[in-house]
């Protein structure tokens, strides 16, 4: 069986597909946050010059202007706090009169942006480290494994807090701190998977045919790691989203002009009488985490045909 076959099988898993679709659409929302809702125009032609995402400024000489679907920025205040959902504000406004939907959209960018970057960096760094550790089994491998094991025990939240105290900028410290911790678990996963696969017949066959260590790794082992890597990236993504939310909930998050789910949750916790404030960002966070869980679960089952067959439990195996 090849890696492609595995991914195809995962694609037949409805749960994995659903989770993946949700994650992709959330990422798209984050990517196009400024197109969906913003108080500055997306594009305009001013005095004959075409500008993309211009800074708000004098609006004279504007011949053409393309504005966002909702004309509100993440920190635009309407002046009316705790407004119920209406045509103008689909989800109402928060304590400072800011549109909840708009902040949610921009919070998606903060959360998913950090999550995707860390997940990618973590998978790439972790794969390289894991591959190296699995190929050099004499000294380097065990040492790397030791380091990864120690780093894996780092609580990401304190590492980020430490970086924040030393460095100041929050988004960077979240990405840096989370990546610093994230690579370790991926590296350990890759190493153990390579060890497990190394005993398989197809690897032995390739080796018997005279394939070099690196050819075996890249041609025969790496394709099999795909699903594990995707599923660990999905779990890493959800872990970072939760981390970012936790940090901004505690007040260690991004600067005020950026919206963040955690900050919205904190506001919801401060005003327990307005339940929407708390439930809406929590719901979105839950959807993200749940989707990542579904993706990971679906891929894992696709990889493990036994688990797939035994979804019905031990009853099947009894004679």
């Amino acid at each position, binding site marked *: 069986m090849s890696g492609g076959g595995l991914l195809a099988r995962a694609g037949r898993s409805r749960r994995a597909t659903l989770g993946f679709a949700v994650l992709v659409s959330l990422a798209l929302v984050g990517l196009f946050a400024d197109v969906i809702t913003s108080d500055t125009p997306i594009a305009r032609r001013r005095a004959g010059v075409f500008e993309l995402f211009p800074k708000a400024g004098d609006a004279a000489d504007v011949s053409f202007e393309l504005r966002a679907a909702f004309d509100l920025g993440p920190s635009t205040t309407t002046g009316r706090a705790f407004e119920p959902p209406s045509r103008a504000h689909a989800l109402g406004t928060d304590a400072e009169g800011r549109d909840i939907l708009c902040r949610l959209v921009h919070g998606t960018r903060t959360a998913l942006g950090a999550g995707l970057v860390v997940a990618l960096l973590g998978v790439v760094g972790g794969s390289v480290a894991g591959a190296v550790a699995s190929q050099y089994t004499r000294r380097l491998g065990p040492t790397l494994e030791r380091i990864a094991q*120690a780093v894996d025990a*780092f609580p990401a939240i304190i590492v980020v*807090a*430490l*970086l924040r105290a*030393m460095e100041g900028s929050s988004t960077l410290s979240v990405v840096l701190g989370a990546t610093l911790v994230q690579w370790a678990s991926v590296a350990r996963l890759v190493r153990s998977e390579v060890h497990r696969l190394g005993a398989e017949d197809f690897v032995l066959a390739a080796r018997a045919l005279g394939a070099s260590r690196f050819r075996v790794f890249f041609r025969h082992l790496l394709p099999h790691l795909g699903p594990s890597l995707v599923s660990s990236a999905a779990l890493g993504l959800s872990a970072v989203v939760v981390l970012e939310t936790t940090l901004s909930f*505690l007040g260690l998050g991004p600067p005020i002009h950026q919206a963040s789910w955690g900050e919205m949750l904190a506001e919801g916790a401060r005003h327990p009488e307005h339940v929407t404030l708390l*439930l809406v960002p929590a719901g979105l966070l839950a959807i993200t985490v749940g989707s990542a869980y579904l993706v990971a679960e679906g891929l894992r089952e696709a990889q493990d045909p036994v688990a797939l067959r035994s979804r019905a439990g031990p009853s099947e195996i009894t004679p």
Partner: protein
Amino acid sequence: MLALFVRRLLWLIPTLFAVSLLLFGLLSVLPDQRDRTGDGDAEAESRRERFLDLPYFVNPSPDDVASRSARATRRIAEGHEDAERAARELARLGGAALPYVIPSLDGFDPERRARVALALAPVAIRMGLPNRQDATNPERAADFWTRFWADRSVEFRPATVRTGVERLARYRTASRAAELAQLDTFAVPALIERLEPPTSAASLEVSRTLTEALCHATDSGDRIEPTADLAEARLVVARWRRWWLVHESDYVVFEGAGRATAAVKETRYGKWAAGVVLDLTIREDSTDRSLERLARAVPITLTLIFGGIALAYVLGTSLGVASALSQRRGPKIAATATVVTMHATPAATMAVLLVALSPGAKSVGLGVIVVGLGMLASPARHQRDALSSLYIRDLVRASRARGASLARAVLTQGLRQSLLATMAVASVEPPAALGAAFVTEQVLGLPGLGHLTVQAVAERDVTFLMGLVVGAVLIAALLLLVSDLIQSSLDPRLRGRLGSAVR
């Protein structure tokens, strides 16, 4: 078994070392936030406090009082353009430099000798020597110091000083203080060594006397006021310890083994590591993150984390067993849905909702429930998977063939093995649980570590956060060890494998 345990413990040392190197590297790479003020001496002192003049890891020729005084003497003698600064430096080094400066006077011609001897005048005044006006007289200064050295050089010995300090600490009379003052900064190392954070009224008096002597020798004003209470006095002592970390090489000569140690100690990394250890051990009521506050905060957070994990594993494994045993699809889906929902719900929301459901119950117990519910997913899934794994099936099938019911077969044959697999996962949970614990503390208003961490970030207390990281790594490493031990005691086959994994 014991060998495994010891080997694992020994592995902690390089791990901690690597962690500290990593943090040190990060600190060195990131720019210093402190702004540069002042010039000349102030700038030099500020650089010194950050150890910027030291090499990173190895210092082949560490500066000590001998090399410093030799350099200053040469500059003064040659009438170097920096002579005035060198004279100030020599006066600061004081009595500790005398054993190196006075014998070297003979090597100079009269003019240079006079210059150096005059530069020592502030020391004579500080020491309160008889005829000290001679030291300020260009014609008599050199003779004054030569005579002084002929009379008094016997007293400039570590053993003499230590006796003097001990007597001062015991009798605390003015005459003892005057005696010690005549040794000037030569007594500083012994004074620092004797200076301990006071714990009672009597030791407060000792500390006051000793800091008084230190202040006199170093022209510092950081003394313990007569009205100071124990906490304030401990703060002063802590500041002196910190000062000693920076200035030790001004008063000590590195010889023999000391020189080898200094090659490592007198480096940026060495000073930084020593400073972190010092900061963590003498951290007093100066900050809100004192040891006392920590001692109250740590149990709360640890209770939340480990209570939560325990709760999650009891509930989760039961759910997993139930889900694996269940024959029908409905309950299975319901169990999975519950677990995923709990996993996906943010701790903050869960905490607020639970508080709303049971008003007035803002306790640690409630926090444990919040943390625990959020962590159900992993034990439930692992338990379910482990129970339906292949290896266990043979056992179960055999048991069924012998006539046991399905539930009995699974519980008696499979549970032990599957619990083993599930418990192996538990040891990696604490780092993940920390975030949830912090949030829960915030919502429930519990005075745990989360609050202190947020404060530390706001005040840029890097040392505290570093201590937290190291503490967390230590706890995690110990947990890993304990879980390995438990596993190998449950499953004898693991013993050989564990041993070889460490090798």
